[in-house]
């Protein structure tokens, strides 16, 4: 299944991308992407998290400048030096985090940055009139031009974003996972709008990892994996779902995951989660984790993975169900109750949720325990540093200098500081949210073996990652989630990446 090139087409392509590459600080995000978009087609770009989809979008919308390769627009080589340059050509982008301003109304949002004005005075009536005709083109005349955008649903905001693209005379609209924030009825409506647009000759680049949507809406497919297009411009009808999954995931399984020791049968259950639910996020989540066991939560963005961890930890207050540690039920919504029971969380966003970046390593490592080292409120910094130094050595944190500010550490070492925090705390239940995000490949393997070692010492671990492969490689058992519901709970050896994706896709279809 190597790169398949498209048959010559009678229609002149609108956009042609050849061998595009882009690196960030030595990391190659894109290394050879080909893409060809025809007028009036829906061209799907598929790829896993981290495959390079976002970088490709940003290169096409003028946010990032590629290092190599070429971009042709209607046959002419172009330089997309800025977002404005891309917009002027006719390339508009609808980002996942919709770039609408909540406090402005529909008209104001649509004409944001290219206001209809004469001599600095806004021509409100003309703008409203034009807004009405744009909304009509999108089949959404029920939206009033004067409505404040903040009061609209995500779907409504998307329509505003599309109307803005049309107002800029866009001929190619890039949609970054537009369905991720919509429910199924809204998705159907979005597809209707897309068909309306393509009928008017507008090309759509549709980014997604939901295969069943692509069957419904897509004309052709380009698959990206590890920054390369593994298949370019395949007609949707010609490829099977199985082929696509293989194209997306088919990396050779390198042996970065440490071997699992079987969890002893007599190991006690440390963490018991019963019918846990959080209104609007997830429901009926039940599982237990034994000492020495690693449980993985697998699912796509929006599956409720992180919310489940944060609710177990008490950082969010559960609306139903309970969390028990060694049979004792925890007070819901209390982080303190969780940490006192021996639980620790390494949060998803290390920098904004985990670390005091300006403070030295040791203060970060003892953030949960400095009061324990203190006597009658007096800090014992010497003891804190000693404990931090011991953990730094044990975790191979480099440099093991406890006075160094956390900000100066690499992603992997920052992760180790958080692990050190909970090891000093004496945690028996460790909740790890994206433990290897922003960690380079070499350090990843090290983090994996650290996690495995902790389990071997009897710590119960729950791990969440957006890389399904990582969850399966690391965990003993895997809980597959979609849209806040449990789809399956399997032994990690009994399921693979394809299996998880398959479950999620079936779950979505139902």
């Amino acid at each position, binding site marked *: 299944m190597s790169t398949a090139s498209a048959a010559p087409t009678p229609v002149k392509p609108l956009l042609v991308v050849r061998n595009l590459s882009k690196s960030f600080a030595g990391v190659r995000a894109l290394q050879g992407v080909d893409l060809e978009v025809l007028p009036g087609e829906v061209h799907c770009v598929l790829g896993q998290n981290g495959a390079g989809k976002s970088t490709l979008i940003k290169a096409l919308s003028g946010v990032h400048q590629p290092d190599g390769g070429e971009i042709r627009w209607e046959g002419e080589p172009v330089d997309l030096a800025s977002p404005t340059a891309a917009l002027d050509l006719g390339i508009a982008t609808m980002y996942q985090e919709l770039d609408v301003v909540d406090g402005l109304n529909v008209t104001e949002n649509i004409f944001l940055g290219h206001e209809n004005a004469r001599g600095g005075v806004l021509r409100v009536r003309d703008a409203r009139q034009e807004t009405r005709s744009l909304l009509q083109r999108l089949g959404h005349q029920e939206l009033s031009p004067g409505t404040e955008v903040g009061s609209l649903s995500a779907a409504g905001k998307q329509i505003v974003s599309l109307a803005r693209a049309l107002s800029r005379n866009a001929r190619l609209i890039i949609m970054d996972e537009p369905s991720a924030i919509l429910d199924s009825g809204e998705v159907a409506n979005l597809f209707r709008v897309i068909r309306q647009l393509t009928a008017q000759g507008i090309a759509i680049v549709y980014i997604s990892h939901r295969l069943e949507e692509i069957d419904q809406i897509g004309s052709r497919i380009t698959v990206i994996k590890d920054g390369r297009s593994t298949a370019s411009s395949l007609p949707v009808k010609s490829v099977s779902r199985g082929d696509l999954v293989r194209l997306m995931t088919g990396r050779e399984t390198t042996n970065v995951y440490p071997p699992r020791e079987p969890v002893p049968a007599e190991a006690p259950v440390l963490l018991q989660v019963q019918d846990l639910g959080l209104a609007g996020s997830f429901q009926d989540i039940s599982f237990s984790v034994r000492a020495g066991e690693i449980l993985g939560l697998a699912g796509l963005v929006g599956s409720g993975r992180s919310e489940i961890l944060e609710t177990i930890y008490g950082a969010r207050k559960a609306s139903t169900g309970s969390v028990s540690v060694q049979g004792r039920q925890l007070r819901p919504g209390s982080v303190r109750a969780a940490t*006192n029971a021996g639980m620790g969380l390494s949060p998803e966003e290390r920098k904004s949720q985990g670390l*005091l970046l300006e403070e030295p390593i040791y203060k970060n490592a003892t953030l*949960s325990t400095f*009061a324990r080292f203190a006597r009658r409120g*007096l*800090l014992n910094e010497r003891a804190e540093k000693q404990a931090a130094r011991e953990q730094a050595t044990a975790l191979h944190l480099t440099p093991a200098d406890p006075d160094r500010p956390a900000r100066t*550490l690499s992603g992997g070492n920052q992760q180790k500081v958080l692990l050190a925090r909970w090891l000093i705390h004496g945690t028996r239940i460790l909740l790890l949210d994206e433990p290897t995000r922003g960690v*380079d490949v070499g350090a990843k393997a090290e983090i994996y073996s650290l996690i495995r070692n902790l389990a071997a010492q009897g710590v119960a671990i729950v791990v969440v990652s957006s890389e399904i492969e990582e969850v399966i490689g690391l965990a003993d058992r895997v809980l597959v989630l979609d849209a806040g519901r449990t789809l399956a709970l399997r032994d990690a050896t009994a399921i693979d990446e394809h299996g998880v994706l398959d479950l999620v896709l079936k779950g979505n279809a139902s």
Partner: protein
Amino acid sequence: MSENNTTTLEPPPSGEDAPAEARRGGWRRMLGGSGARSLGLVIALALLVAVGAATSGSQFMSVNNMLTILSYGSILGVICIGMTFVITAGGIDLSVGSVMGLTTVVATLTSVQLAAQNSSWLLMVLVALAVGALAGLVNGTIIAYGNVVAFIATLAMLVAARGLAELISGRRTQIVTDRDFLAVLRSNVLGVPLLIWIFAVVAAVGWFLLNRTTFGRRTVAIGGNLEAARLAGIKVKRHIVWLYILSGLTAGIAGIMMMARTTAGTSTHGLYYELDAIAAVVVGGTLLVGGRGTIVGTVLGVLLFSTLTNVFTQNNLDTSVQAVTKGAIIVLAVLLQQRFAVRGTRRKGAL
């Protein structure tokens, strides 16, 4: 992307730098962990003293004048210590001036003074402290548990406390009649007015509390990253309440000092003190966004402003000129700090 950047920031091991760092650590820690910034303030203060000496000579440099400068700054200084804690934790307390006014009014009520005469002058002190702490408790509770932005909550208290003080006093100045109160608080200890000693003690306790105790560590952690502090199991809300109580307490202490100096309680005491306090704290090097606070810097900031006032008074200059100069100094000091801060960051990164 930023993640990638940090990967490249991996600093090289620093063998020979470590001992020098440790040697320097001693005095730098004395200056609240921001030696370079405090050093800038010391230089500015020295320059100002030189100007004072050059323009008014021996009169400026006399011991008496030095004590005048110190006692002028001591009341605001006490308020600034509480403010340093609040700002270090990422908050702000706009109500300190009017809370201070309120404490003087309540403590000089006829009933309170009568009761004090029948028992002890300490009763007036206790009443002032209690009023300050109560105002802080209200501020803190509204901010922490009502999730109201500190700026708004304390702005409301600023208005309300001033109004309450006017209501209670009927806008009349209430004279302090308790002789013991005045005798003790207006006394000199070792030739230095007691008010200066109070400021010194409050500053010393504040320094210790911020740098050496779990209370201080929590304060810095909350200001540095509130979410991280919460997820680490720190009781963030409760601590925030304590911080505003602390700020209210220092306003109460300042109120006691004000009553001693002016021998009166009135609703106009402490007008605009909140602005002077914030200015002194920020000029001192405490970050307005939180996460870094320095008591030494705050004390220097207070001294800088009171010396400035003194130099102007000595030279019979207009107070309006003084205000303009103050404004210029605030901007200059903060600009300088930013340069120092950037340099400090680079240096640390390069080690």
